[in-house]
């Protein structure tokens, strides 16, 4: 990854190298390119350890689950193991449970990310503008993000438990976690509560990139506070917003902990990660479980692709203008 910044120079060098092959007598230049080549070799050597670790911890499991997904492989019936090509995919993709879970996952992702974006932006603006007690404001805003998700999920569960939970008694008389709509709302609420600070932090980094002069110029040009926000701040922050959205969308799509603790997938509240887990770990069906994992991986890859290619999301700080 870290060598990517040297790529343009390398290509330029390759080009000039191609030209040089026709003029082999230019020794001085050849010597220079020898040095460059060594530098490149050193570059590769330096990232080799990181690359190896990446291959070991990500590429191998991904390829292995893909391999498993092409087989009928249920640990309860190990003797029936068989290579079935894409039959598992057909099974999963024609299954109603999968699509329900997919819908639930999409719903949670879209709603929670949208709400987080709005709240996170508000929080970021507050943190950016606060002059007094800045440290305190920032620290307290980040507390939810610092709590382990499972722990937070349990406290939400107790809060919503009828007769003992303070929220359940306050807001309703039924058992909200046992009805689909309210359970999903609570799951989304828990997600939002937990990760809005992260969103705010990413957006605050983007806010810092908006030059003060630009906002002053906009006020001179007659823009109201809202117009300054929508016409100047948001467009300038767009790269940071997209990165924040990308991170959070990918994260939200894999939602697991909150559902596991709050409902355990009851009343059709399972996410795709939940049912993949159920098939793999509870059902011990390696073939189907792996198929689901691969499908989740594909969905995540598509989301990332859409963000990067269609919206032009770039790493913060890299010059993204004109790259589309």
């Amino acid at each position, binding site marked *: 990854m870290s060598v990517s910044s040297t790529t343009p120079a390398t290509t330029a060098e390759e080009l000039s190298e191609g030209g040089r092959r026709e003029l082999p007598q230019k020794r001085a230049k050849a010597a220079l390119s020898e040095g460059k080549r060594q530098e490149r070799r050193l570059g590769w050597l330096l990232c080799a350890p990181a690359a190896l670790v990446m291959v070991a911890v990500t590429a191998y499991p991904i390829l292995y689950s893909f391999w498993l997904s092409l087989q009928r492989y249920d640990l309860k019936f190990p003797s029936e193991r068989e290579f079935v090509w894409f039959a598992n995919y057909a099974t999963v993709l024609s299954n109603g449970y999968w699509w329900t879970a997919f819908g639930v996952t999409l719903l949670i992702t879209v709603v929670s990310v949208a709400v987080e974006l709005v709240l996170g932006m508000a929080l970021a603006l507050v943190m950016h503008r606060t002059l007094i007690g800045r440290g305190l404001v920032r620290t307290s805003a980040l507390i939810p993000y610092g709590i382990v998700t499972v722990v937070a999920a349990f406290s939400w569960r107790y809060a919503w438990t009828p007769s003992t939970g303070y929220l359940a008694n306050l807001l309703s008389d039924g058992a909200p976690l046992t009805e689909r709509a309210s359970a999903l709302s609570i799951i989304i609420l828990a997600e939002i509560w937990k990760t809005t600070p992260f969103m705010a932090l990413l957006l605050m980094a983007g806010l810092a990139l908006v030059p003060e*002069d630009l906002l002053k110029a*906009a*006020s001179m040009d*007659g823009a109201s506070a809202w117009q300054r926000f929508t016409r100047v701040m948001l467009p*300038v922050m*767009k790269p940071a917003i997209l990165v924040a959205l990308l991170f959070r969308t990918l994260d939200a799509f894999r939602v697991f902990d909150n559902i596991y603790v709050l409902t355990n997938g009851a009343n059709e509240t399972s996410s795709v990660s939940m049912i993949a887990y159920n098939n793999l770990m509870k059902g011990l069906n390696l073939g189907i479980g792996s198929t689901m994992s691969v499908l989740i991986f594909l969905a995540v890859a598509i989301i990332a692709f859409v963000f990067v290619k269609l919206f032009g999301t770039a790493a913060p700080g890299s010059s993204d*203008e004109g790259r589309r």
Partner: protein
Amino acid sequence: MADIVLDKVTKSFPDGTTAVHGIDLEIADGEFVILVGPSGCGKSTTLNMIAGLEDITSGELRIGGQRVNDRAPKDRDIAMVFQSYALYPNMTVRENMAFPLKLAKMAKEEIDRKVGEAAKVLELTEHLDRKPANLSGGQRQRVAMGRAIVRSPKAFLMDEPLSNLDAKLRVQMRTQVSRLQKQLGTTTVYVTHDQTEAMTLGDRVVVMRGGHLQQVGDPQTLYDRPVNLFVAGFIGSPSMNFLPATVEENALRCPMGELALDDRLRRLLTAADAPRQLVLGIRPEHFEDAALVDQAGKGFTFTAPVDLVESMGSDKYVYFSVEGGPAVAADLEDLAADAGGADVPHDRANLVTRLSAESRVRGGQEARIWMNVDKIHLFDPSSGRNITLQEEEPAGVAAS
């Protein structure tokens, strides 16, 4: 179009710094006024208060006769050009210039017409559909100007608009800004820390230091009749020579020798109740090669070893260092700090003179130099006051 009046305007920041101390200034309708002073003297703060980007702590600001202290920037009908240009990076040149008009809900054709006109004046027509990132510094600067002029506002405020350009472009743009201002006749307040820019551009120049006005006047007045050491040293390039001078019975002793005190000077010294130790100021062009002066008797002639000669073609800059040490005054230290604090040896004073091109003065040799005594200024080292201005009618408005 409107006049702008600052009435004892003060700015204190929440952290306790007072950046502007009760400034009084009247800017006439259509006037081009320059705020000049060293970095940190409160120029931008003053401009931001006129713009409405900073609250006014006390005092009153009137634009076109109306008190505007509590009006938001957008309700003051003023345009501003920033040093950073502050162009909207996501908009094309056209959209940048159209932005204030769009916000004012102007009709589409009207916007197109105005943007087109401004683009023509500023030679931006072929760049209208480009993004600021793809423009040169000079072009960006012109877009910033364009965004200001399309609105035909009551006044323009410019905060060091040319500082980010290279020297040559800066000179070109300077004339363009000046021409544009004359053409439009819009009241303009222009901030710069560059005294050359201030002298060449403005109808009137306001010299500021440490949040106080030092002197307000047209460029020639500031140059010829500076009210104090600071203004004298800040205006002019190369700057005025400052030398220690001691008042004796009938003479003024300075490093070049003893100057006879004529009636005028003696009267001024008595009137001002001047101390015996003074600072003598004289500009480089008030020296001449003694061989080229006819009425040498009228001035003062001295001999000194030449350090260096710089021939400029039209004239020569000749540098001397004279025995007797540099002048000491608080104001001079401020000036030196602003100029970057050139290290001067402590037993000799440097003298910069501008002689005619015909002068035969050579480096390393002794030269006989004539000095126009009528042009000397005498300053009180503790207050910095220009004593030589005393009895004459006041030159511009001096800050108390």
